[in-house]
């Protein structure tokens, strides 16, 4: 960006060719990007849903077939049920963690908040494999139960298994959002309630929770949509009668030209958009928490000795549960043979040796892909946030809607859309085919993770008082200079948070990338794990690679957390909010 920014106020002079202001130009470029890499590719896929498979004529027949098919109706109900139950269980997991860490002076609060993020970065495949080894029909737990008590618990059977795995995987969305809301509640809200005679759980239920509702709803909606669209977990647990797996099975089946896969894709996207919209409707006008500012959050209370023991008990139990996939992964990565026994037969470092000698390429690719995608995301996120919150650009809200809609697009749909759209497009500079160019993987990751970064950037920009920007402008800084020198530095914390979320989740993404990896040397970690996990001897190595993925991402998260924390401390009690 240069000094070509024009004032947003109309100049009053008439020009035949109005020069686009920098903001308008940026907005236009972002809109084109989102059209090209999100909207059009998805349209390419779901458009098939409206075609007669044989004649290619437009028709609604396919939708009629969809609703006439018992299997699809059941799949829809199952998907809905699994998503709703996952939200319930994710809430049960997240609520105590969020409550205890934000409401009490609790020594391990920061650690717990960080650990609470880890389940999100479980690479696909390995998570379900590890969970099956621990909780499956003949997993460690059931073998022990059977041996000592003579019964087994069907944790992983059918829809139960999907709910179990999904709620453990996605609860951090609720934890993160709910904790943030709880921290934002003005202390006086709570004090007023206490003053009027309310206390304890009752106050929590009647005052605190309603105030934290917007954050909770945002998290819950995310969990719902993610579970609704996810196909990896059901497929790994061999559950077919849900919508996403049905779509996948029908689109990728060999030689099949069945339009139903596309119909289901359309329904997945449409329903997810609908769910997103409903959650927004719910939250509109309920966003009290952020209205009250500067209250310093709820008062933290000290726990009595007994309460402390209880709180630690609850937290350790939950952490043990949510980190069990990682524990299983560790056993798998360090174990020799693990078959029909509670623990591996022996332990070895050999798998890590294999990984280090064979797979450094995957690690580098992942860091490059997820890193670039996250950089693109925070740049786009910052720009969109700025345009939406600070400019008067016509249609600016649509940038937000379009970017957020990526949440509602299943990875496979995007992957197939890219193949359709970019195949045959030859890139210059000898980069070859666009659809097999590794850059497209970065774009896909960036588009898929943009909503996360965007939300973080929006929140960050909302925290920056407008007068801080006006001060810069009145001192002679142009818009671009103000953005560069004032706005962006002040958003650092939020931008970093967005970067971390995008990076961490992109680093373990597989559903879109699996369609786009053109050759093994371009493959990212998750794909490498997938390859390892396709052979008997590769299970340990795949798990070791999974551990590496978790460690890399966790380290990145930790470092950024430190930076955010420092940034927050430095600005504590800083001036800048208007009265």
């Amino acid at each position, binding site marked *: 960006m240069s000094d070509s920014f024009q004032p947003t106020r109309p100049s009053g002079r008439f020009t035949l060719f109005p020069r686009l202001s920098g903001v308008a130009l940026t907005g236009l470029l972002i809109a084109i990007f989102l059209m090209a890499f999100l909207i059009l590719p998805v349209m390419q896929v779901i458009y098939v849903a409206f075609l007669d498979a044989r004649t290619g004529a437009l028709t609604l027949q396919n939708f009629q*077939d969809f609703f006439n098919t018992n299997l699809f109706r059941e799949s829809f109900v199952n998907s809905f049920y699994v998503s709703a139950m996952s939200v319930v269980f994710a809430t049960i997991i997240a609520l105590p963690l969020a409550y205890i860490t934000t409401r009490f002076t609790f020594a391990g609060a920061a650690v717990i908040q960080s650990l609470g993020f880890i389940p999100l970065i479980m690479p696909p495949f390995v998570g379900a494999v590890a969970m099956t080894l621990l909780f499956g029909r003949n997993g460690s737990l059931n073998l022990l139960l059977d041996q000592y008590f003579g019964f087994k618990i069907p944790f992983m059977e059918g829809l139960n298994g999907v709910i179990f795995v999904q709620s453990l995987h996605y609860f951090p969305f609720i934890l993160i959002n709910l904790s943030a809301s709880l921290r934002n509640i003005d202390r006086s809200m709570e004090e007023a309630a206490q003053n009027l005679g309310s206390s304890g759980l009752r106050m929590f239920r009647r005052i605190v929770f309603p105030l934290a509702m917007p954050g909770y709803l945002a998290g819950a909606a995310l969990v719902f949509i993610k579970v609704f669209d996810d196909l990896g977990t059901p497929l790994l647990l*061999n559950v077919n009668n849900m919508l996403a797996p049905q779509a996948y099975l029908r689109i990728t089946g060999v030689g099949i030209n069945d339009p139903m896969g596309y119909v289901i894709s359309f329904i997945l996207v449409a329903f997810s958009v609908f769910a997103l919209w409903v959650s927004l409707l719910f939250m509109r006008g309920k966003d009290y928490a952020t209205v009250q500012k500067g209250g310093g959050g709820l008062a933290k209370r000290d726990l009595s000795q007994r309460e402390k023991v209880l709180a630690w008990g609850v937290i350790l139990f939950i952490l043990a549960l949510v980190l069990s996939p990682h524990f299983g992964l560790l056993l798998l990565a360090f174990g020799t043979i693990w078959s029909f026994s509670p623990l591996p037969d022996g332990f070895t470092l050999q798998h890590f040796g294999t990984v280090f000698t064979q797979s450094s390429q995957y690690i580098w690719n992942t860091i490059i892909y997820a890193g670039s995608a996250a950089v693109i995301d925070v740049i786009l996120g910052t720009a969109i946030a700025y345009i939406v919150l600070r400019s008067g650009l016509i249609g600016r809200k649509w940038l937000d809607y379009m970017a957020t809609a990526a949440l509602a697009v299943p990875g496979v749909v995007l992957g197939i859309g890219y193949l359709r759209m970019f195949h045959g497009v030859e890139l210059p500079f000898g980069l070859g085919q666009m659809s097999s160019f590794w850059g497209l993987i970065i774009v896909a990751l960036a588009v898929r993770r943009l909503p996360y970064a965007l939300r973080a950037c929006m929140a960050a920009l909302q925290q920056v008082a407008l007068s801080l920007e006006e001060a810069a402008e009145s001192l002679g800084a142009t818009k671009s200079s103000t953005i560069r020198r004032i706005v962006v530095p002040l958003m650092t914390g939020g931008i970093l948070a967005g970067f971390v979320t995008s990076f961490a989740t992109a680093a373990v993404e597989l559903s879109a990338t699996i369609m786009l990896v053109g050759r093994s040397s371009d493959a990212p970690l998750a794909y490498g794990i997938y390859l390892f*996990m396709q052979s*008997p001897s590769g299970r340990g190595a795949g798990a070791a690679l999974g551990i590496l993925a978790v460690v890399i991402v966790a380290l990145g998260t930790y470092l950024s957390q430190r930076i955010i924390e420092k940034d927050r401390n430095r600005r504590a009690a800083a001036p800048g909010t208007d009265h």
Partner: protein
Amino acid sequence: MRKILLTTALTLIAGAASAADKVVVVTSFPKDLTDPFKAAFEAANPAYELEVVSRNTNASVSYLQETRGANTTDLFWASAPDAFEVLKAEGLLAAVDVAAEGIPDSVGGYPINDPAGMYFGFAASGYGIMYNTRYVEANNLPIAKEWEDLMRPEYNGHVAMSSPSRSGTTHLTVETVLQGDGWDAGWAKWKWISGNMSTVTERSFGVPDAVNSGSTGFGIVIDFFGLASKASGFPVELVYPSLTAIVPANIGVIENAPNAEGAKAFVEYVLSPEGQQVLLNPAIMRLPVNPAAYETAPEGFPNPFTPEFAPGAIAFDVDLSGSRYTLVNALFDVMITYRMDDLRAAVAAVQQAEAAQEGKDNAEAKALIAEARALVEALPITEAEASDPSFAGVFQISRDKPDVEVVGRQAEVEQAWDAFAVANYAKAKELADQAAAMN
């Protein structure tokens, strides 16, 4: 020393010029197989570099179809001949004249190479039953050696296989039984076996994985999964039922390949005696198609060129299989994969009824059980219908060939089958429960 330097220099030069000499192969084979071949091939042909693109068979076919307009792939390398048939029918494979010596025309009654020369068998695979020895011991199960064994009630909940629509190799297994036993008896067999299943996996590797980890006892797998798992140290064994088909795993050059020369060189390498030796690598364990290679094979390694191997092996009819390929997959999924719970309930009810009536002489109960069995086994279409192009075509509609007359839409047909299967399974369970309650 000088020689090493020379080779290094040559490799470097070759590497520098590699852009033109890259051979891109799309494959469903795991790293364990591709890595040793890549290493061996590049060592033997320093001028080439092998680029491996891994996808499962079905995704590979979709990928090659989607990318045909601007092809970047030189080779397709996978197990299932059906997938090659699909590609061949769509004109995606090139006919290549490959020089290979010492490879017979057929193995186990199956022609090794495509008669049109569009793809070549490079390794043979049979299908078998893989089992976890610890699991079998802990559950006190006898070892199942034949497909029929898996139908028995004691295996209820102990079996796994993958869906034929997801795994080309499983499709071959299903089709082998259908061809060996006939349409009705074959499907009946699959239904009774499936009634004993704990799971139908989405990936073909899901089956050996489940057996290796002990989450299930028996798996219906392609042989090398069992052999390689055992070689990796898992407590598993593999048996070949007498009804099996030996089917070659194949490699073919893609039409319009960017590097046709390199593609040909790789095919020739894979079929060469050195290439065939690579198959005996413990992580690969596939049966070479060159009988000479077995001379160096480890003790007990199965040899399909010996008469004692799989005496019931049938001559697999590729054309028949191809004509109903997607229909068989769809029928399996609709009747079995997607209705696993209903089928399991019906099969368990029949098994319990039979156990309850064991040794008794209640004619009415026996009639009910027979009726229930018939309901479980009932099929919505006959073999003739299945091979009728106007019907099977419903599953292969293509906008490229709008003139093929078909009778309905896939979704419509599947819904009819689904309703048929659900009603029959429910009725069968009801009858069997009645029979079980009788004295």
